[in-house]
């Protein structure tokens, strides 16, 4: 794998579809672009089949714009709403069986370290709250216990959204959903704290209403994972379809959730991570 894979072979420049030419000429590869540059470059995710107003789609767009080295990143996705749009992402990505993303990412990261010992290859496991907080929690936590050097990002829409709206461990206590008509009986899982206690050197929660903050957290998480160990980010992804609000109100709902304290922005940084962050953010 080298970066020449993003160059078109001579003679085929005009034959390639415009989307690909645009990715080569105006894409983010090797250019160190970020969230503030959105709208000025060909993005890695443009068309997708997710619902109008989907907080996950917005979050994914922001994450992809925040990756410090998209040309050297492999995403491991898993079943859920997010998996419906991975096929459209113009970056290496793998679909794993529901909940397996952290086990697959473990093998991938270790293999990449052996295959490319002189290069930095980032692995980012992404999944919904069902894949990371419920069904895949065992594999997620064991990857953290083992100190695997990759980032885990949870799209937290507080439900199993693409299967009709069952409650998940991440749903708020009392949440009424299509398949939880009497309301959820227990509290939202404290995943950022679980991640911290399970060995993540960096654990944070954020919302897409704070794009710059989200970008900073993604960059910190990915860069820290290269050197120190597992990192975790949880992003609130409001779901208009299952929580039954207008698609145009996603960001308002996000802000309301922050304001009421139902969704809190958090950041836990280990001492070693703190030291490293100072170094790379000073250099920048």
């Amino acid at each position, binding site marked *: 794998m*080298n970066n*020449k*894979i*993003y*160059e*078109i*072979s*001579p*003679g*085929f420049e005009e*034959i*390639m*579809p*415009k989307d*690909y030419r645009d990715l080569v000429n105006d894409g983010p590869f090797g250019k160190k672009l970020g969230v503030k540059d959105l709208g000025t470059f060909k993005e890695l995710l443009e*068309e997708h089949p997710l619902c109008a107003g989907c907080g996950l789609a917005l979050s994914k767009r922001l994450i992809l714009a925040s990756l410090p080295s998209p040309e050297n990143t492999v995403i491991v996705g898993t079943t859920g709403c997010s998996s419906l749009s991975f*096929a*459209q992402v*113009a970056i290496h990505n793998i679909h794993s069986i529901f909940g397996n993303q952290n086990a697959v990412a473990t093998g991938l990261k270790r293999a990449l370290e052996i295959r490319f010992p002189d290069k930095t290859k980032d692995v980012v496991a992404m999944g919904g709250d069902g894949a990371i907080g419920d069904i895949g929690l065992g594999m997620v936590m064991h990857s953290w216990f083992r100190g695997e050097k990759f980032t885990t990002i949870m799209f937290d829409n507080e439900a199993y959204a693409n299967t009709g709206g069952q409650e998940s461990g991440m749903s708020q206590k009392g949440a009424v959903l299509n398949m939880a008509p009497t309301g959820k009986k227990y509290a939202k899982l404290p995943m950022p704290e679980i991640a911290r206690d399970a060995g993540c050197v960096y654990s944070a929660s954020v919302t897409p209403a704070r794009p710059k903050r989200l970008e900073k957290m993604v960059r910190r998480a990915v860069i820290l994972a290269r050197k120190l160990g597992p990192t975790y980010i949880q992003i609130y992804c409001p779901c208009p379809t299952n929580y039954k609000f207008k698609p145009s109100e996603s960001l308002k709902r996000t802000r309301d959730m922050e304001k009421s304290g139902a969704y809190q922005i958090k950041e836990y940084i280990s001492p070693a991570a703190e030291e490293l962050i100072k170094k790379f953010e000073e250099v920048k």
Partner: protein
Amino acid sequence: MQETNYRVINGPEGYLPPAAASMGVVLPDRGQALIEGRIVAEKEAMEKIAEKLLSAKNPYFFPGPLILWAWNDKAVEKAKAIKELADTAGAKIIPMSDYRPKYPMINPAEEINPNHPNLTIWHNKIDVCVFVGVHCHYANLALKIIRGGTDCYTIALCANYGHEDAMISLRDVHAEEVRNLTAVIKKMKGGK
């Protein structure tokens, strides 16, 4: 030893055609090739490819990611050779830039995808197509779908061991072998 009577001919062979390998078609050894499931000498297959391309009404090349992207010098060299081959044969080119299942957004006029190659063939009324630089498992998938749902005659120029599901398949095809094929076509056209 090859014992099957099964022939890999252009379809449509039905919604779910059998994989030629499951019908007893075996891959050729070095120096050999496949024509419609029969093992033949490489030279014979090259002449048949030339004949098919030159007699086609609307031949197309489908180059895949292995040559479309300049990921190493050999890929670039082979890409140049393929471009020359397509031009010599008077064939058009539709790229298979990657394998993302972009349905229903795919534009069959400008790209082909292994998950629905029939759309591209129907849309462009392609009667002969050549797969080259496509990873084997995706080529197999596309070739089987084409045989199942279209009457397009398929040719696979493979850098590895060949493809049972193509009507004609060469193996070990790199830049030099592509240039040899170009020479065969030029000769058949009456050139030097």
